[in-house]
């Protein structure tokens, strides 16, 4: 057995006195001073932490936990009912705001409707020359001007 295997065993199984080790581990432990020291240290820490003060709850915790849960639920309920109360108070405010917005939209729409359009369909029907469209020139003339051959 190698030291690494011994260390892995120690980590897996926890420190145990040599008499409780499997034969292979015990053989390595007897032969290797480093692993002996390692085990000794682990046993020391085991005893050290075992001497830690015993801690136990003073009594059953459920009554306190149940009270805590209830308190949270009450708080959540009072929060949500407060939210509902505030919401109910805000409903008329929102309604008024919506009415005002609607009225403003209607007013601005009708204000736009009063303006004279720049180009009405009726005027186009009366005067076709006012219709926007391509320039009144031959395409070849336009192309010649574009390539600069107009004067040649």
């Amino acid at each position, binding site marked *: 057995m190698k030291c690494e295997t011994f260390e892995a065993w120690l980590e897996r199984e926890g420190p145990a006195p040599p008499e409780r080790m499997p034969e292979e581990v015990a053989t390595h432990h007897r032969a290797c001073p480093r692993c002996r020291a390692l085990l000794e*240290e682990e046993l020391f820490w085991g005893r050290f932490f075992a*001497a830690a003060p015993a*801690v136990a709850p003073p009594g059953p915790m459920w009554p306190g936990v149940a009270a805590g849960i209830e308190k949270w639920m009450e708080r959540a309920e009072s929060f949500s009912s407060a939210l509902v109360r505030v919401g109910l108070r805000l409903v008329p405010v929102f309604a008024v705001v919506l009415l005002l917005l609607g009225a403003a939209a209607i007013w601005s729409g009708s204000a736009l409707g009063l303006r004279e359009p720049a180009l009405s369909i009726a005027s186009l029907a009366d005067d076709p020359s006012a219709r926007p469209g391509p320039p009144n020139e031959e395409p070849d003339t336009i192309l010649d001007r574009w390539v600069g051959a107009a004067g040649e």
Partner: protein
Amino acid sequence: MARAEEERGWVRRAREGDPGAYRLLVERYQSRIYRLVARILGQGHEGIEDVAQEVFVKAYFSLKKFREDASFGTWVYRIAVNQSRDTLRREPGTIPLDEVASQESVEALRGLLRPSDSQEGDPPGRSEGLRALVGRAVAGLPERMRVVVTLKDMEGFSYQDVSRILRCSVGTVKSRHARARERLRKALSPYVPDLLGRKSHEV
């Protein structure tokens, strides 16, 4: 296995709103959670009971978020660690070891190095002193190291379990654990000089 199955049943029922099932879970874990909180906060801390109760209250309201890829125990331990850490962050500060290192406790500590010397015959005052010394030595560790030492050395979890509870890698846990041991060695070395010589054997 039956125990785990039974626990899953309680969790399911508690999720559905059965307070009786949640009560069974609280009763199963109350001692362990209380002990863990006490060891992280340090004994004598006034808020141990409140924090432990708060852990179960939080767990109750978070049950819907609990995915059953870990056991309820691991999950509630995680909540307890986080809750204790939050409490510590609000009130930092540790007490130096030499405030409690009485002559009796130092002698008892030295006795731990000699396993052949039985502790059974120690006078009660000496054992009390040793307990206080151990408690204070652990409480003197920085919070992250203390949590690892508490889970690994005092609660007996494996490195893998600790890494699951703390949601960090096994390597991180091992590193924090080794540093914690080193700190403890240094803190205790004035009283047990032999201990410092053991450093070289650290894995």
